[in-house]
């Protein structure tokens, strides 16, 4: 206890120097006034600390009190919970308050080799996760790397945690909005804040859909298999390459369902947080864009969880269980898909949309009842792609966008529908066909009567007797009912007769259908001919129709145009046959290591993904684009509905479908089908794996460094061709956030309303930090854009080749990129692009066979100077002509040198 000082009115408090001193600090002894004196009560149950004479009872904790100044209070080493501020003795303060502190003041370190790393300097808040961080560092970091950089990890990252990366992207690739102007926007148009908010809402709504579907799958798996169920993609993946996007966002190495559920909870919480933020008044456009990036990453996270569940819990085939040597032709390209391959004499059971459990369970029902080969199991959209991975006899029919084409034909006996990625008026579409509909999702109930709790036999009886649709929310029950109805239902598999000539005669040639059509189909002339019985032109136009229904909305006389097209297109549908290669799931470490050589040394222009929802300018277009890219040695990935359209491409020369013609290992000149819609994550994972396996960048809780490496060094591009559903919008954002440029189109790409563009003329944007000496270097505009719309496939392919170049390309890789870009541009536009020279740093980067010609072009068109086979002077971005040595001193990154867009990733100087 302190001794009160003898009253001394002349002695002032030595702390505040204002008030008279009344006490003294028990630690340092300075005089204190009543205000500056802090009283602490030390309370401890330990007998060793009991102070005789202080405790009134052996049942009470021993209490000692000290008077301390604020400085000593702050420096005092007190254990949490044992020291607390002494209660005020003045009566007017009421009951004593006890402060609770959650601070963890313990030191958390991990020894990596000879270096001791402070975990609290690496992670913003290590409470509860120090073990996980230790595991990451010990398993996945080398000592050299850990000491080279300002190491930061962001487990369970929020959008704010990753904003250093998002800002790096957004300062280079400005968000450009094209949201149509509303009357309330005024003459200045909509604000960027409004547009950014709407853009974010579009992405987050799709996140909600995918998370909700994934949650249903998780809940089922938990109930059926329990939390200890082992989760992995197969035998092959290791800690290093297990599931990069999941690892990058959360830091978790998933071992079982319990771990995976934690990841799902994290994702759901992030989605909720961002969704809530869309209501925030006064938020800036930049912040909304950062959140939008994060939402894009989150949709891939949900897809990753779904993929892991499907493979680990439901046995979808996975490349990770295969011998790597077999991957060149695995899975076999032998699946006969298309309506033309469906045996119409059998019951036809079709699944549509994101429904996974109903088709999976229905197939188990079919197998257990010995009905294999006695029922046709077909799929539209994602359901089709997934079915092939657990039921080789399944058949893919059509993409989600063009579902009407199949549904309106009446070929399906029973349609089972889950969540869908786009608006579709199913009951209206199948009206009159006799197709029975079973809806299985609370989010897409179609307004049908809920028969979930009714007896299965009664539901079956009603459907067979003529009830057109029911809602059954129990997937097991829905599967059982679907199979039973398919077996029992006897119906003609045709659509009702459509009097095309009569409907066509109503056309008034207003051409409003053409104005709304994504493919600008000019219908009026064809309708006039059809009204007279000549259907030829209509049949020809049907090939270009995506069955979106926009024409019907605009049609003044109300012609059901899709019905007309479906009727004239029936022959084309019933003759449509193609060969699918089922999806294979993940790409393996062995493939990634083999790719790296090709990528770096220019054997291939790069890796590309061709994704589509089906709204292309023709049903052949996607296959043509795939062929163009694979033929140029790209490693081309696909997944989802796009794989179905690509599969339709047939080579007259080789007499093979495209999946039969090209190999399926993720190597040069291959066409890799990863699977259904959720398998899109395998493509992003594959891109990140190269950073891990090729660049030794750990993925765990390390999104920023992964994306920085990917963006600056790796030659990737995604072409999303046919992007009508908003899910494509969210995915494009997710790819872009990972540093992968995306070209979108055709017409639906112009409805994105938000793009991420970099101007090749604005040299202020194009710089990097030299990763070794920290200097800022000007670099070429690469990749020029992150989300970019193109009108035609020629534009898309040409820009895609441009977007493959990177500032850190080595010489041979750069030569291949330049050659491919010029080649593609000349093929389609018969001239040189006006910017290819920005990628040239020496004559060695000009492809050998064309070197002299290109040197001439540099001289004559760009004003460079050459001497024989050598470049002597180059024109910089400021237009000045300088010696080539000088040019390379100031422009570009020296070959093989490390560079970054993130300042803390500059190597620490010793």
């Amino acid at each position: 206890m302190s001794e009160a000082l003898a009253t001394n009115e002349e002695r002032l408090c030595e702390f505040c120097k204002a008030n008279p001193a009344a006490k003294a600090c028990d630690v340092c002894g300075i005089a204190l006034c009543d205000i500056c004196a802090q009283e602490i009560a030390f309370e401890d149950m330990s007998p060793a600390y009991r102070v005789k004479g202080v405790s009134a009872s052996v049942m009470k904790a021993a209490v000692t009190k000290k008077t301390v100044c604020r400085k000593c209070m702050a420096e005092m080493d007190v254990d949490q919970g044992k020291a607390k501020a002494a209660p005020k003795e003045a009566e007017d303060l009421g009951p004593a308050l006890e402060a609770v502190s959650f601070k963890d003041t313990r030191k958390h370190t991990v020894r990596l080799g000879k270096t001791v790393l402070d975990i609290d300097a690496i992670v913003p808040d290590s409470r509860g996760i120090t073990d996980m961080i230790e595991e990451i560092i010990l398993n996945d970091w080398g000592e050299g790397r850990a000491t080279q950089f300002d190491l930061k990890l962001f487990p369970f990252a929020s959008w704010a945690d990753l904003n250093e990366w998002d800002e790096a992207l957004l300062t280079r690739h400005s968000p450009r909005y094209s949201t149509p102007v509303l009357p309330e926007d005024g003459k200045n148009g909509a604000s960027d804040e409004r547009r950014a908010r709407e853009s974010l809402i579009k992405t987050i709504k799709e996140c909600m859909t995918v998370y909700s579907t994934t949650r249903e799958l998780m809940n089922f798996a938990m109930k059926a298999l329990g939390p200890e169920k082992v989760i992995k993609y197969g035998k092959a993946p290791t800690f290093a390459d297990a599931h990069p996007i999941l690892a990058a966002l959360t830091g978790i190495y998933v071992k079982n369902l319990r771990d995976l559920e934690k990841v799902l909870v994290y994702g759901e919480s992030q989605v909720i947080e961002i969704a809530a933020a869309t209501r925030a008044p006064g938020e800036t456009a930049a912040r909304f864009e950062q959140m939008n990036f994060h939402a894009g990453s989150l949709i891939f996270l949900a897809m990753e969880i779904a993929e892991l569940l499907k493979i680990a819990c439901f046995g979808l085939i996975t490349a990770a269980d295969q011998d790597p040597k077999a991957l060149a032709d695995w899975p076999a390209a032998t699946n006969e898909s298309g309506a033309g391959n469906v045996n119409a004499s059998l019951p036809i059971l079709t699944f549509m949309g994101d429904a996974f459990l109903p088709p999976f369970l229905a197939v188990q029902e079919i197998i257990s009842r010995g009905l294999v080969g006695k029922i046709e199991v077909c799929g539209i959209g994602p359901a089709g792609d997934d079915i092939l991975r657990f039921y080789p006899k399944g058949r893919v029919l059509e993409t989600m966008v063009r579902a009407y084409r199949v549904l309106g034909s009446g070929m399906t006996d029973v349609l089972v529908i889950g969540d869908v990625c786009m608006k579709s008026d199913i009951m209206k579409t199948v009206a009159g066909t006799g197709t029975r509909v079973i809806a299985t999702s609370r989010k897409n109930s179609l307004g049908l009567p809920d028969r979930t709790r009714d007896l299965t036999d009664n539901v079956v009886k009603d459907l067979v007797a003529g009830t057109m649709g029911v809602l059954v929310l129990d997937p097991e029950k829905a599967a059982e009912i679907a199979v039973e109805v398919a077996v029992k239902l006897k119906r003609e598999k045709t659509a009702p007769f459509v009097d095309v000539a009569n409907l066509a005669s109503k056309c008034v040639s207003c051409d409003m259908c053409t104005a709304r059509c994504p493919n600008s189909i000019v219908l009026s002339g064809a309708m006039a001919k059809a009204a007279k019985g000549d259907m030829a032109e209509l049949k020809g136009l049907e090939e270009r129709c995506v069955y979106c229904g926009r024409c019907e909305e605009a049609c003044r006389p109300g012609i059901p145009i899709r019905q007309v097209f479906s009727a004239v297109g029936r022959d084309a549908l019933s003759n449509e046959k193609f060969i699918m290669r089922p999806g294979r799931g993940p790409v393996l470490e062995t493939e990634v290591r083999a790719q790296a050589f090709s990528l770096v040394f220019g054997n291939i222009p790069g890796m590309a993904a061709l994704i589509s929802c089906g709204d292309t300018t023709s049903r052949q277009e996607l296959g043509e684009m795939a062929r163009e890219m694979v033929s140029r040695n790209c490693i081309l990935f696909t997944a989802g509905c796009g794989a179905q359209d690509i599969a339709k491409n047939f080579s007259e020369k080789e007499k093979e479908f495209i999946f039969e013609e090209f190999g399926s290992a993720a190597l040069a000149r291959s066409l890799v089908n990863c699977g259904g819609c959720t398998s899109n994550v395998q493509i992003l994972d594959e891109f990140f794996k190269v950073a891990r396996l090729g660049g030794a960048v750990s993925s765990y809780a390390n999104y920023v460094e992964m994306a920085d490496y990917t963006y600056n060094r790796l030659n990737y591009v995604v072409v999303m061709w046919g992007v009508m559903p908003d899910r494509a919008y969210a995915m494009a954002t997710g790819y872009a956030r990972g540093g992968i440029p995306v070209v979108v189109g055709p017409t639906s790409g112009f409805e994105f309303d938000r793009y991420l563009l970099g101007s090749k003329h604005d040299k202020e944007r194009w710089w990097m930090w030299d990763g070794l000496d920290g200097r800022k270097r000007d670099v070429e505009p690469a990749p020029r854009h992150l989300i970019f719309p193109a009108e035609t496939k020629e534009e898309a392919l040409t820009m895609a080749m441009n977007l493959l170049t990177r500032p850190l390309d080595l010489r041979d890789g750069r030569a291949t990129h330049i050659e491919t870009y010029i080649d593609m541009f000349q093929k389609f536009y018969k001239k040189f692009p006006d910017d290819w020279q920005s990628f040239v740093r020496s004559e060695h980067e000009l492809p050998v066979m064309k070197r002299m010609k290109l040197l001439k072009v540099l001289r004559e068109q760009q004003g460079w100077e050459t001497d024989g086979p050598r470049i002597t002077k180059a024109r910089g971005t400021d237009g000045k002509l300088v010696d080539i040595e000088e040019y390379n001193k100031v422009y570009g990154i020296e070959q093989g040198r490390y560079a970054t867009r993130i300042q803390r990733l500059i190597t620490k100087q010793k």
Partner: protein
Amino acid sequence: MNSAKEIAQSLAANPNILIMAGDLCSTLTLPERPLIDYAVALSEKLKAPIAATGNTAIHLDDTKVTFAKMWAAEVIDYIREGAVKPLTDKAPECVVLIGYQPYVAERLVAGMNGTKSLVLCNSHIPGATMSYPDCSLGEFETHLKSLINEISQEGGK
């Protein structure tokens, strides 16, 4: 609806015009002539360069108009920032869009942030400074011919 004369007068008042010709110029044939012919005629009468987007550039090689193969999104970006290189050294005062689906044109115009625009298609574009009302392709072609005629009468450039 702005009459052809009003539109022609408005165009004449802007010395710095850029024409954006979208891919429909290379695919759409109106009842009498391909749309590309009207794009070329406008360029000649207005002495305005053409930013040929989509695949339109291929069809302009044999003409005498000033054009460059460009991408629509980049043209809009350049318009916001100023010059549309290599065609102009400063921001155009008026942009004429021809050969785009109406809802694509609507978005391109929205991206220009207030630059004066004339959208030539068979649908009204609310955000454009000038456009035609909803009409058939035949009526649209009639409007185009009238416009080109009025521009000629205004003296072209």
